[in-house]
């Protein structure tokens, strides 16, 4: 394929305005006559609401409206899968931060003051904070239907027999932490009614079309009376996939008929935001003497907190990826997703795969050590290939990259020269180690969910092309990739393509900006639409200038029609006369596996991205401090659309996974969140970030646009076990609980 734009490191169109601060996020907007909204939240993890008195707050000067569950006109609940989270709690609160009332006032200060005047009488209930305790029948029920949201089992092959045949069996328990997205822009936005009676909610979010459904359902409005605008978004990472403040904004605007702004403080965001699921993962893995994996038995207990959101789906994703990027013929996996009175867990970059990959990649290192095998060799021997079966027994029929990616990781200087890198630590009492790990992550929504892309392409009077796609730009850089894909098909330069995303009034529903899917599905839809527009232009010019269609050719700056050369402005003038349009919509339905995995809803995925990481660390044997000195990332994104974008994803993902490995954790004590801001929720800074190099392996996926897959998530997964495996390589401390804090590493050093 001779490609003009695909794969080129073309700078993002939004880079300049974001760097200069000129770009406006939805929570930056303001309007004349605007009110400020606030949410009253439960201070208790589990309690009955005995009474609710808003009279003083209503009477407070500057307060325009105070709303409780009585004022939710439609369904007082939301949730992507099951709607079990009240918009405003009526009888019971289930976590610290649960919403009880919302109000709007003339100023921020009046809103804050009025919040203190709402009187809520609670009757405290015993809280359940440990998911294993919550699973017991005798525990207090958080929801009427019980505390187990999802319990699923899969067994394929014969695990018992395969363990009996194994030369070694490694059994360990792993515990993972509760990180938060830590996006730059907290949850927030503005809502207002237009002259046409449509309620527009401006709010950074990852799937505006689904937000419309949830907002309309709660407000009892028709969907076409609600519009969501959600681009630009100051970071999502999964934390803006579910409803955050959209319904509150809409309720307040509905009741006041004025523009309302509501932006969560960082503290409020830390308490109420969606966290990554903490999981207890027990793994028993058997291998033959040559390191061939034979049997894998896995138990996963996932703490989803007070409400379901995507907890069940995330558990299933964890189950599907429980053997990492490796082939195991006999697998038995059981998962529980459990309600607790902890903070809510939901989608976060990796979607259950980070947790199990951390566990599996640690198992692989332990197996290698017990068998005396090289850590890379054992991985290469077991790496998944096309035609293998995945962990749940489904056939893998698309381009699988683990072997190629691991081979490239083995060729990085950091791995091949690791003894040199380890040789000279900066202090006599410090030790260096190099770790290796790999991961796969499914792209898209799996077997059951409708998984489609939709886009439109049109020629504008200016001679530019406009591409419309629902999947919002959440910082990942899909806008420039969309422009490149459109330009590649159209033949014009990338500069001549304008991309609009994330506005239900302007863009076709193209599904979520999640699940490493927007390039894959929307890219294919853009190709479809752009191909049609090329035909429309060719036919239109051919008819107007009376030349053969074959003689019309769209070029970078001009269109050739026989002997004539037209600028795109000329083309637009010719084709858009008298109200005519040059417009096409495009669609792509993601292919699905031929059969569903029995007994786990929604699986398998069909397409997988792969990543491998090599990490060099230096461990202070006296303080337990771990410094990451160098990271080599190897990314299989299928065909790369924008190299700069891929490197950005790769570097950002590596740093996010490094925070997961070493420092990031929302600490909850008896339901109370103790980490309220970035002073004690420790994300890596630029100073902590080592040089990161990214190598590209293009295992081209034929169903992908130009062969591309998605990588938004897989780039942040294997770095975590690469770092913890490097810690072991340095000081023989096996990290089985995340994060590997200075205290835990030092305790490990003392035990050893």
């Amino acid at each position, binding site marked *: 394929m001779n490609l003009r734009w695909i794969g080129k490191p073309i700078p993002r169109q939004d880079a300049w305005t974001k760097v200069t601060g000129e770009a406006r996020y939805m929570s930056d907007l303001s309007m004349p006559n605007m009110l400020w909204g606030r949410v009253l939240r439960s201070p208790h993890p589990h309690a009955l609401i005995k009474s609710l008195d808003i009279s003083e707050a209503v009477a407070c000067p500057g307060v325009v409206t105070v709303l409780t569950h009585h004022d939710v006109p439609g369904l007082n609940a939301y949730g992507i899968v099951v709607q079990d989270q009240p918009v405003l709690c009526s009888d019971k609160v289930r976590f610290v931060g649960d919403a009880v009332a919302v109000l709007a006032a003339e100023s921020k200060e009046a809103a804050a003051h009025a919040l203190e005047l709402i009187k809520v009488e609670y009757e405290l209930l015993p809280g359940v904070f440990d998911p294993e305790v919550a699973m017991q029948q005798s525990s207090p029920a958080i929801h009427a239907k019980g505390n187990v949201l999802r319990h699923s089992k899969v067994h394929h092959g014969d695990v018992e027999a395969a363990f009996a045949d194994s030369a070694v069996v490694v059994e360990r328990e792993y515990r993972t932490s509760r990180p938060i997205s830590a996006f730059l822009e907290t949850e927030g936005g503005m809502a207002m009614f237009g002259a046409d009676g449509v309620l527009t909610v401006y709010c950074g979010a990852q799937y505006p079309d689904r937000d419309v459904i949830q907002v309309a359902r709660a407000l009892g409005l028709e969907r076409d009376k609600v519009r969501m605008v959600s681009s630009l978004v100051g970071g999502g990472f999964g934390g803006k996939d579910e409803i955050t403040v959209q319904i509150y904004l809409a309720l307040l605007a509905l009741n006041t008929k004025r523009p309302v702004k509501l932006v969560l403080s960082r503290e409020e965001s830390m308490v109420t935001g969606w966290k990554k699921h903490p999981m207890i993962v027990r793994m028993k893995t058997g291998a033959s003497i040559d390191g061939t994996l034979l049997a894998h038995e896995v138990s996963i207990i996932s703490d989803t907190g007070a409400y379901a959101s995507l907890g069940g789906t995330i558990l299933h994703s964890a189950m599907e990826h429980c053997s990492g990027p490796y082939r195991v013929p006999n697998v038995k996996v059981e998962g529980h997703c459990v309600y607790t009175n902890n903070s809510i867990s939901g989608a976060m970059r990796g979607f259950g795969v980070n947790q199990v990959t951390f566990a599996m990649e640690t198992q692989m290192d332990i197996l290698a050590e017990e068998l005396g095998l090289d850590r890379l060799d054992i991985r290469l021997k077991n790496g998944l290939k096309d035609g293998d079966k995945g962990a749940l027994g489904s056939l893998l029929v698309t381009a699988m990259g683990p072997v190629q990616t691991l081979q490239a990781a083995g060729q990085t200087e950091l791995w091949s020269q690791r003894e040199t890198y380890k040789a000279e630590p900066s*202090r*006599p*009492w410090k030790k260096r180690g190099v770790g290796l790990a790999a991961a796969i992550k499914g792209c898209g929504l799996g077997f059951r969910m409708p998984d489609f892309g939709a886009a439109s392409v049109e020629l504008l009077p200016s001679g530019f092309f406009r591409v419309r796609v629902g999947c919002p730009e959440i910082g990942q850089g899909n806008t420039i990739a969309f422009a490149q894909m459109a330009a590649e098909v159209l033949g014009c330069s990338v500069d001549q393509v304008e991309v609009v995303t994330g506005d239900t009034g302007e863009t076709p529903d193209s599904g979520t900006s999640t699940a490493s899917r927007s390039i894959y599905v929307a890219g294919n839809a853009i190709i479809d639409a752009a191909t049609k527009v090329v035909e429309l232009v060719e036919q239109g010019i051919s008819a107007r200038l009376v030349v053969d269609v074959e003689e019309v050719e769209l070029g970078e700056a001009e269109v050739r029609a026989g002997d004539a050369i037209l600028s795109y402005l000329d083309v637009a003038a010719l084709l858009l006369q008298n109200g005519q349009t040059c417009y096409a919509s495009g669609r792509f339905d993601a292919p699905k596996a031929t059969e569903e995995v029995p007994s786990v809803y929604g699986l398998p995925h069909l397409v997988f991205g792969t990543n491998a990481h090599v990490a060099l660390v230096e461990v*202070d*044997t*006296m*303080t*337990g*401090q771990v410094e990451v000195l160098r990271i080599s990332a190897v990314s299989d994104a299928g065909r790369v659309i924008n190299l700069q974008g891929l490197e950005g994803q790769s570097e950002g993902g590596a740093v996010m996974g490094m925070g997961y490995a070493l*420092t990031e954790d929302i600490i909850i004590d008896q339901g109370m969140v103790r980490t309220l801001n*970035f*002073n004690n929720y*420790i994300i*890596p*800074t*630029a*100073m*902590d970030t080592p040089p990161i190099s990214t190598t590209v392996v293009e295992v081209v996926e034929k169903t992908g646009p130009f062969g591309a897959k998605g990588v938004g998530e897989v780039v942040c997964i294997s770095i975590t076990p690469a770092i913890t495996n490097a810690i072991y390589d340095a000081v023989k401390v096996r990290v089985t609980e995340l994060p590997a*804090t*200075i*205290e835990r590493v*030092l*305790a490990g050093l*003392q035990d050893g």
Partner: protein
Amino acid sequence: MNRCNFVSPRAMSEVLDILAADPEAKLLAGGTDLIVQMREGRVSPRTLVDLSRFGELSYIKLRHDTLHVGCMTTFNQVARNPLVVRHAPALAQAARQVGSVQIRNQGTIGGNLANASPAADSIPPLIALGAKAQVVSRDGSRSLAIEDLLAGVGINTLLPGEMIAEINFSLPAPRARSAFVKLGRRKAMAIARISMAGLLVLSADGLVTEARLALGAVGATVFRALEAEAALLHKPLDRAVVAACLQAVQDTVAQKLGRRASATYKREAIRGVAEELFFQLVPELSAP
């Protein structure tokens, strides 16, 4: 945050008058601690006195072998000042490790001291340097050692109406060495889990004639490790002497921490912080 009166005096005398009239008034220097505390509702002053509107409290000057640092001098000014870098490297190192560039442009050395956090980055080096605080009120002024200004976590010994106007210290002897080490959870924007500063003066024949070691974040205040200092005094800086000193540091810290939750970690990790400090103070000892 509650409402409060905000006053911006244009001269020092005005500040002292306000403080005399309202001893509860809070001085706002860089605000990097105070504003955070107000936001969290831990303090809610009725009156905030802004010190940023007159320049006379921001200076670093050398007079008669004493370095004078005005209370409103920012960490970046301290970190980049050639006199500090040359004569008091421990203080420059500490100032460089405060927060981030933005915080170092905002936070002041006087504010850091008055806030009296046991984890304050500037306090250990100031104690190691034997620095004094010049404290003023409408009624006069007094000078007191930095240690004597610290009474507990977030508690200083200033009397009603007093403020810290200046910090000063005699230049260390020409053969002095000083260093500062901070253990945090990351390399920037980190609150010290443990910090330590040291100043050593060696005689021409290599004996320790002066030793001051200060420990941060291992007690209610930053304090001097007197036993550890004694282990060095009048001795040559060989490996055995340093080992005895490190042991004394560790013992002191264990005693000071008692049964606090963090004690298990800190009484071990102090060893690494002290080792790093001596690596910097006496690099020749670690040479292969």
